[in-house]
């Protein structure tokens, strides 16, 4: 399956994402999930950045929190709401919000 997972929190209360398998896996960081893309904890990047080859972070939610699109890890593509619509219709067939 081609699965896009929305991650909306920084500290995740569940380990679902660790166990999920998908032929194509994308992670879309939204809301406080954007900290995975912008912020290191004790100097270490979020382990989620190694979990999937396709990573996106929502620009509106980065800027709402006083950060800049340039603050995002190089592996992550900065997108806006309109891009998210195209991504979920064109590149994945199932969606999850965790």
């Amino acid at each position, binding site marked *: 399956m081609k699965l896009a997972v929305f991650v*909306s929190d920084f500290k995740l209360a569940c380990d679902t994402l660790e166990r999920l398998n998908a032929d194509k896996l994308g992670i879309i960081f939204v*809301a406080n999930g954007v900290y995975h893309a912008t912020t290191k904890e004790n100097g270490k990047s979020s382990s989620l950045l190694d979990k999937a080859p396709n990573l996106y972070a929502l620009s509106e939610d980065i800027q709402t929190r006083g950060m800049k699109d340039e603050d995002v890890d190089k592996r992550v593509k900065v997108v806006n709401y309109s891009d998210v*619509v195209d991504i979920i*219709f064109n590149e994945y067939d199932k969606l999850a*919000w965790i």
Partner: protein
Amino acid sequence: MATLTIGCFPGLVGNMTYDFALKLAEAAVNKGHKVNIWFSGNASGSVKAKQKHLKDYSTGEKHLRALIEKGVEICTCEACSIARGVDKTNAIEGIQWNAMHWYLAKIHASDRVLQIGGE
């Protein structure tokens, strides 16, 4: 053009997840897609009419009215709403009222489904 159904459970005001759901719906409908929104849980309280929009608080009503205007179908879980004291007589016009099977029926005809849990 395709169909997106969003199930939204978190409550309105201050919870940015609710704001996300409405913004995504707006972006999809602006691109010509068909969008359905199902409210359950705390989100079912957000169909109450006469919300006062204070600038310190996010709001549901004006965004919901704008989405309905654009053809988005929005339905609230009747049981969830009336348990909170919100009924059709004091709700935003144009919102549909139905049981949970409305959501499953919309899902049946959808290309993509985004179920957003939480409070």
